[in-house]
């Protein structure tokens, strides 16, 4: 084992940590908005991600059939489309289901869990029970190797970039747009926000739909690293809640910090001990920290 080998492995392991960080953050973002800002426990978050994944599959199949010359370029457009589809689905779900349950937050858990099962079965009926594999453009495959023996996965870089963009955009929107202002006002004090003329019902619906849209983007981006099937969403739901709860429910920065912490712990531990034990260790640490700080890493000031 030479020095360059050790250097290469360290570099790649460092990247593995960052890559897991961006995956966790991307899957947690939409939930952080919905759960963190609105207090809705959205168990169907994973299924909104699956909508995104299937959008990519549809786009790749249609492009392959009708416009094969665009195979290299379709992916970014498909991601935008994923946002739109998931956004619409979220809008409908809020209108039909969630808005009746704001006063009963625990019931949203049951209702959205039911919704997730219904959505899974819908995917199964429409796309079939088997997993599918969208054809990805060539430039997303393989690895970038700046030196011999050093391989940086391109799909990892891609997910990282998407995460950066989406996080930046969400932060900007939340703190620099009128929608953000309304959301923050509603979160801080719903009655007062109503009183000053903010249409909180409209804000709720938009917020929920945006959260779902971001889940759609996450699902779309994850087709490069994971599976696309009716139940793919359920692979992510636990981790997504973990990230959001650990970070402190109402704090977006907390979500970022917690995704970073969990990703690094998990990926470093995985390297030195076995995979299952690494998971146990990570969860154990989270439990201990949550016992000391029940409100999560970052708690924002909310009037209750």
């Amino acid at each position, binding site marked *: 084992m030479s020095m360059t080998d050790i250097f290469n492995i360290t570099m790649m392991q460092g990247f593995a940590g960052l890559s897991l960080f961006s995956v966790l953050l991307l899957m947690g973002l939409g939930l952080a908005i919905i759960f963190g800002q609105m207090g809705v426990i959205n168990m169907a978050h994973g299924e909104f991600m699956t909508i995104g994944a299937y959008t990519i599959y549809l786009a790749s199949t249609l492009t392959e059939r009708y416009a094969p010359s665009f195979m290299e370029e379709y992916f970014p457009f498909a991601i935008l489309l994923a946002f739109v589809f998931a956004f619409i689905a979220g809008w409908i779900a809020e209108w039909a289901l969630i808005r009746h349950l704001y006063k009963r937050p625990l019931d949203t858990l049951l209702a959205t869990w039911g919704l997730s099962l219904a959505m899974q079965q819908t995917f199964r009926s429409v796309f*079939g029970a088997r*997993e599918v594999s969208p054809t990805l453009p060539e430039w997303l495959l393989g690895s970038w190797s700046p030196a011999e023996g050093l391989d940086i996965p391109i799909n990892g870089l891609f997910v990282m970039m998407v995460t950066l963009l989406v996080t930046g955009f969400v932060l900007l929107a939340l703190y620099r747009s009128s929608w953000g202002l309304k959301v923050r006002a509603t979160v801080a004090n719903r009655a007062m926000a109503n009183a000053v003329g903010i249409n909180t019902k409209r804000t709720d619906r938009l917020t929920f739909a945006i959260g779902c849209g971001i889940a759609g983007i996450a699902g779309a981006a994850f087709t490069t690293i994971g599976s696309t099937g009716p139940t793919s969403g359920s692979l992510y739901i636990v981790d997504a809640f973990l990230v959001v709860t650990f970070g402190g429910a109402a704090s977006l920065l907390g979500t970022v910090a917690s995704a970073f912490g969990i990703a690094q712990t998990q990926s470093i531990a995985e*390297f030195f001990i076995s995979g299952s034990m690494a998971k146990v260790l990570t969860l154990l640490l989270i439990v201990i920290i949550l016992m000391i700080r029940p409100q999560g890493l970052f708690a924002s000031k909310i009037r209750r």
Partner: protein
Amino acid sequence: MSDFDEPHDPFLTRRRILQGMAALPLVGLPSFGFGAPPPTAKVNTTNLAVTDTEVTVGQLHSATGTMAISETGSIQAEQLAIDQINAMGGVLGRKIKVIKEDGASDWPTFAEKARKLLVSDHVAAVFGCWTSASRKAVLPVFEKENGMLYYPTFYEGLEQSKNVIYTGQEATQQIIWGLDWAKKEKKAKTFFLVGSDYIWPRTSMKIARKHIENFQKGSIVGEEYYPLGHTNFNSLINKIKLKKPDCVYCAVVGGSNVAFYKQLKAAGINAKKQFLLTISVTEDEVLGIGGENVEGFYSSMKYFQSLNNPNNIAFVKAFKAKYGANAVIGDVTQAAYLGPWLWKATVEKAGSFDVDKIAAASAGIELKTAPEGYVKIHPNHHLWSKARIGLAQPNGQFKVVAESPALIEPNPFPKGYQ
């Protein structure tokens, strides 16, 4: 009556051993093969759902839930076999009627539906289950109510029941010959074992480890298990890069499987740089993984869709005619297809639908029309079968590159491997 239109017996050397057993079903056949079917009172003394024109069987798989991904193929294959048998006139002159139950990927539901099939519907046989967990859940029901289950999945072994016929490979059949091939053909001496964290990969890897260490004198440089549904394998991939094993030996399943191969490819590990042998990837899984991500890797199974023999060509043709030209057939799908045919042969040999008589008559039942080639039921209720190595092609099919010369004896309780 005989469905052996094109008898081809590739096992001349084995003939003498087989003769005794093989003669039995042939003795039974002619007496029922012509003329009127035998009276119901004679073929059904245990109050099964058998009439003069019909026999009812059950089908118990997950049509919904997580496992629907895998079990759909089995449901289709069993239905195809039953349709074909009915088109030939049924079993003992009776058409097969199927009651389909959905286990919904939930093990207690499997047990409940099994009880319903046996107690309320009095089915003559059940084709079903996929995961070991579902099989373990229904086993006590089948033993208590004395039913007959045909179970299609390759599994970890360590089980044998009067009431179950295992039509897939048990672990030693799938693993040992494949490892010997890896040592002989690929000169593999160091192995890195990777699996999902539950009973089947753990038991299989235990057998692999014993075989590599004790019999091949090779070494294990890493053994890793990841929770089911784990989707991030970058750290593992770095460990593989660090250890540089001759062979990565995998039993990763489900959604994790897809993530694992996509990330391997993204990390620059491909077939040119790394020899990889898996026991958990069939044509079904490649649909989700994508052929370009597993191209050049090897899979150890008893059946591949590309097998070039007349039985298989006819089977693939019939399957595609029924389920569409894009349908793929994996190892378990083929094993599920064997279930109804083996049951038919056994019923005809026993001259009865009674479960006790079928259980007793099963040993020695042979099937020359099996798509995988010739199979035969061992007294331990598993199948004698060949082992094969397939090389993954970018189009999602496998090219068969090696095949065990003889049928491998099933050995669910292997000595020296536990």
